[in-house]
């Protein structure tokens, strides 16, 4: 394999050197523009799954004119198969808090929120303690930044940034129309930076070690490292920080149980890759990687040959049907149709060709749904149906 990119484990995120105070006070001595440039040159992209350049996000919000701005840390980790954010918040919360404060400094926000999913409520007391200590230090160095924790109440869709803001405003967590984007009009209509927990920790790494160190890791278009949540049929489930750009082949070699039939990359909203395509698939953001490049929030689920792909898809679709906010037609009705549709084909009530109609429906959902949830149902659906069609049919 000429192009093989060896799997490289890295240890930035969970390395705990207890130097956040120093990093914070040093970083905020630099000019905001300098820090934005640092982030831009690191080519860090959002680690929640969508992959928007973080530097740009901060820049837009910094440029927005408003008395009041906010920083939000998105810890509504709900994608099936991801659990990295919980681990970060319980092991290195100070890195997240520091990054939020720096973000506040860069963008001109003096208030930050951590939107913590309801399922992680047990984290709240420790996190609050960390925040107290953090704010105490901020006071000491006369740096004005407050952080509070906002608890979610059990809704996957609230991980969508605008739905999250609606939820924080005490409403139903329904995604908003975009534009306007949060950098212009976010929480309470004010310019807001919203970053995933992991993204914020990476900015900490960048501010500590410099953009170059980060940029040198990974491959073109997909720089740096990423946390992967590994689960399913694997002898080594858990969280691993790996360099981006690895091939799925290498990944399976490391984490598979020797009988890996397929891997779901990116959770229920991601893609299923069958064994025959492992070597062509690379993990990273869209770009000119060889083969297929798969962006991901870091969920890696392995399935061995004992698993029915129909059951997997059925489980995902049930998830989407329930977790869709229900406001837009393609997602609300589409998810129901897909779930009922595959069951009907399985039962023999609909012909196998009906699967093609459903795939076309997922395309429509991808084009027309209001937010990422409805748009991404197509990913798992078509990758599973196309690769395991025989398992879908009665």
């Amino acid at each position, binding site marked *: 394999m000429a192009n093989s990119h060896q799997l490289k484990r890295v240890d930035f995120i969970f390395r705990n050197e207890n130097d956040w105070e120093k990093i914070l006070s040093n970083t905020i001595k630099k000019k905001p523009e300098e820090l934005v440039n640092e982030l831009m040159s690191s080519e860090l992209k959002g680690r929640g799954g969508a992959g928007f350049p973080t530097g740009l996000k901060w820049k837009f919000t910094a440029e927005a004119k408003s008395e009041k701005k906010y920083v939000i840390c998105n810890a509504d980790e*709900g994608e*099936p*198969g991801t659990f990295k954010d919980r681990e970060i918040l319980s092991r290195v919360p100070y890195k997240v808090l520091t990054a939020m404060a720096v973000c506040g400094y860069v963008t001109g926000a003096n208030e930050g929120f951590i939107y913590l999913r309801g399922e992680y409520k047990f984290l709240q007391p420790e996190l609050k303690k960390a925040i107290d200590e953090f704010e105490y230090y901020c006071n000491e160095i006369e740096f004005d930044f407050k952080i509070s924790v906002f608890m979610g*109440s059990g809704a996957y869709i609230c991980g969508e940034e605008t739905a999250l803001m609606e939820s924080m405003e005490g409403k139903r967590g329904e995604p908003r129309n975009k534009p306007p984007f949060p950098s212009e009009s976010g929480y309470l209509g004010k310019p807001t930076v919203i970053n995933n927990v992991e993204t914020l920790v990476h900015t900490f790494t960048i501010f500590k070690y410099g953009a170059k160190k980060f940029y040198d890791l990974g491959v073109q278009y997909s720089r740096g490292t990423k946390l992967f949540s590994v689960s399913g049929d694997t002898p080594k*489930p858990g969280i691993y920080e790996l360099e981006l750009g690895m091939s799925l082949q290498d990944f399976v070699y490391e984490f598979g149980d020797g009988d890996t039939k397929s891997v779901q990359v990116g959770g229920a909203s991601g893609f299923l890759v069958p064994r025959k395509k492992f070597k062509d698939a690379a993990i990273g953001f869209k770009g000119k990687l060889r083969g297929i490049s798969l962006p991901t929030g870091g969920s890696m*689920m392995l399935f061995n040959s004992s698993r029915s792909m129909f059951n997997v898809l059925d*489980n995902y679709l049930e*998830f989407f049907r*329930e*977790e869709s906010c229900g406001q837009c037609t393609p997602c609300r009705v589409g998810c129901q149709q897909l779930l009922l549709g595959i069951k009907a084909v399985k039962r023999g009530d609909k012909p196998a060709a009906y699967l093609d109609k459903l795939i076309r429906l997922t395309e429509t959902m991808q084009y027309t749904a209001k937010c990422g949830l409805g748009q991404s149902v197509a990913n798992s659906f078509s990758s599973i149906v196309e690769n395991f069609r025989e398992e879908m049919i009665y």
Partner: protein
Amino acid sequence: MQGVVERESFLSEHSMVEIAREIEIPAADVYGTATFYSFLETKPTGKFIIRVCKTITCAMKGKTQVLFAIQDMLKIKMGDTTPDKRFTLLETNCLGWCHKAPAMLVNDDVYTELTPEKVRDILTKYMDKNGNFHN
């Protein structure tokens, strides 16, 4: 709303009206918002709400057996509350413990790598007659 749920475990008609009055929003919107979130119950629940994860990895790793064990032990079906109003059994979507599947929440506490035996032990603790074991 979260506060009320914490104290009373669910939002009664009375408390929803109180919330509406307090923050001056329509009662219908309180209801609409509450029903959006799976952790805001609008029907009476038991003191302990068991939420078993049903998403893929937990489903693969024996969630069904765990559920059977719970149902058998508490003598209730999915969605029901025990007659003594102690437990309510629900399913929920991914709890974020896929590497330690199957997982469940009992109120805010997480239990992972469940087996039928383990889940029986856990629930026994909550069955403590005095009801002051876990609150």
